[in-house]
């Protein structure tokens, strides 16, 4: 509670501070992030990435000779709240670009609204293959699950696991990744012996876990949002299911709210937090926040801001239509801290580096 209140205060303080120095001349872009709710830890990490990017841009003279400012709205981890926030950003603040959210189930409706309003959308954390279908005006800085699920399936198969039980949330992200994983894993000769798409926001998943346990898998492959993953991990621990190997798809997301003692020993995969040119960013992050990356996602938020700033500079204007065209042009080849960002014909990141990971008091490369 205390930390939540403090985070809310910090966020409010940040907004107030940025509003205080706000100037009609500032160049503003928008973001909708899960600062509260089950993905709050990730949302905070995304906010940090944006904060660092804004500092960097303004230290180098800003955009179009003016200061850059990101207006960050909280989604609460709920689609209706995220939509309200997007409406405010599009109609009141009249920003040309909105970044966010994190969960695909929330990103998709929010982005659909934004592109209809002519505002460009930058996806900085969602990976459902359905993000591809949002339409003209929506760009992804992060790779989608048609690639990542194949990476995970290959990895699990190479670890000699053949009977997988699959757990994911029942939303656009979970359905997408479940489908892709099963397709790839079974094509290689493995078998998904049980699959649970859990209802988000429950206080217990014990019965679901007991059901899939009956299928006697040799590996549990799961993907869940921070606090829901914490419940699943604890109950799996209480049921002794951690005697079997657990494999986390997007491991920093899965373990960020789980006590280390419970998460130790899990393996998984994750997007690379930084690319070859990311070292200075990593150092700036740990210097400012006094800890290592909380998740793998801050760099994508950072790149989102940098890409937007570059596009606005290229367009020479904050007019939404011009910025949209410029985004596509900048995205032909953009060197970000997460690696080279190149959009494919559907405006999605074409090449996404992934890492094999394991958990031992923190997510480490394997």
């Amino acid at each position: 509670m205390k930390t939540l209140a403090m985070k809310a205060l910090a966020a409010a303080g940040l907004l107030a501070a940025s509003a205080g120095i706000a100037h009609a001349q500032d160049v503003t872009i928008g973001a909708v992030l899960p600062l509260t709710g089950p993905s709050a830890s990730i949302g905070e990490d995304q906010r940090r990435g944006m904060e660092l990017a804004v500092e960097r841009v303004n230290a180098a003279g800003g955009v179009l000779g003016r200061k850059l400012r990101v207006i960050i709205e909280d989604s609460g981890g709920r689609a209706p709240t995220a939509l309200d926030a997007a409406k405010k950003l599009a109609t009141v603040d009249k920003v040309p670009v909105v970044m966010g959210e994190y969960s695909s189930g929330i990103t998709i409706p929010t982005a659909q609204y934004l592109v209809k309003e002519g505002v460009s959308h930058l996806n900085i954390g969602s990976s459902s293959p359905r993000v591809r279908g949002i339409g003209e005006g929506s760009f992804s800085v992060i790779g989608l699950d048609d690639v990542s699920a194949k990476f995970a399936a290959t990895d699990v198969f190479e670890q000699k696991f053949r009977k997988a039980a699959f757990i994911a949330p029942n939303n656009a992200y979970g359905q997408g990744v479940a489908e892709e994983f099963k397709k790839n894993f079974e094509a290689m000769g493995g078998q998904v012996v049980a699959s649970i798409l859990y209802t988000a926001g429950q206080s217990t998943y014990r019965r679901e876990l007991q059901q899939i346990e009956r299928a006697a898998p040799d590996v549990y492959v799961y993907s869940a949002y921070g606090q829901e993953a914490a419940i699943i991990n604890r109950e799996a621990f209480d049921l002794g299911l951690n005697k079997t190997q657990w494999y986390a798809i997007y491991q920093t997301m899965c373990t960020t709210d789980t006590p280390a003692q419970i998460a130790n020993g899990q393996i998984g995969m994750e997007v690379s937090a930084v690319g070859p040119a990311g070292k200075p960013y990593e150092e700036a992050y740990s210097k400012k926040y006094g800890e290592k990356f909380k998740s793998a996602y801050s760099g994508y938020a950072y790149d989102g801001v940098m890409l937007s700033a570059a596009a606005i500079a290229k367009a020479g204007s904050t007019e939404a239509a011009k910025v949209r065209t410029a985004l596509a042009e900048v995205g032909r080849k953009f060197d970000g801290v997460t690696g080279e960002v190149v959009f494919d014909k559907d405006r999605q990141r074409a090449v996404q580096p992934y890492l094999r990971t394991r958990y031992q008091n923190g997510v480490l490369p394997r």
Partner: protein
Amino acid sequence: MFQFVLDVLIRTADLALVAVGLSAVYALVKFPNVSHVQYAALGAFLTLAGQRLGLPFALAMALSCVVTGAVAVLLNTLVFRRLLRSGPAIAMIGSLAVSMVMVALMLGVAGSRPLRYDFEIVSPLVIAGARVSHAQAYSIGAALLVLGGFAWLLYRTPMGRRMRALATNRALAEATGIDAHQVTNLISLISGALAAIGGTMLAMTSDVHVNLGTDLLLPVFAAAIIGGLGNPLGAAAGALLIAVAETAVTNLNFGWLVGQPLAFLPVTYIGAASFLFLLVALLFKPYGLFDREVRRV
């Protein structure tokens, strides 16, 4: 199989204490108090607040029991007794309103994020191949202990006799000089405390969260009604039956029906199970399964 028994016991412990308190108060005030399940949530939050303030867990829980009991007595005296003059239906709607206010207050103070008690993480106990966490074992033990104590109070003390006399024939009991208000207050206090223990135990095995009370509403009422509203120990038996039904529904393998090795009912249907069970029970035993006992008291 033993795992099944344990799962049933865990679920029974979740439901029984709250259901028993609900039923006991009903015996005296003759209206179903919907806000009773929120006492459980309140109790869980108060214990958490106590623990965060640095109290040992047992002391925090004891304090939470006292405060929740006091809240139950206050609400009964200030709100429900007045509403009851207009009839039990009005009082029930009033209790629904109280319940909503309580949820709003808890949401406002504690937020919507699930919270946890601060306990060390220990591996589960393994008994005959079945696994049970320490928290769950404590929860089962506490439920048995508290239920035993309550039964003793009800059937072996003068206070319990007064309470049963009031429940059976109020006019006659008052004529013999029993102070109905005093007995009702005491039973309210105890039922509030029982709910606080129940809520705390439930939160100990899962999370402290704002929906804790609301999630209990259906199964707890089903348990109390199956046991015969107003029959506290019947409610405990009702809780056991509901727990068996819920656990069986999610554990049964329906694979043979669809021609697959494994097929389970989705867990979201669990509420429907207790409701269905309640409907069938009421069709054949409209006054609850243990009706005859109640009338004989």
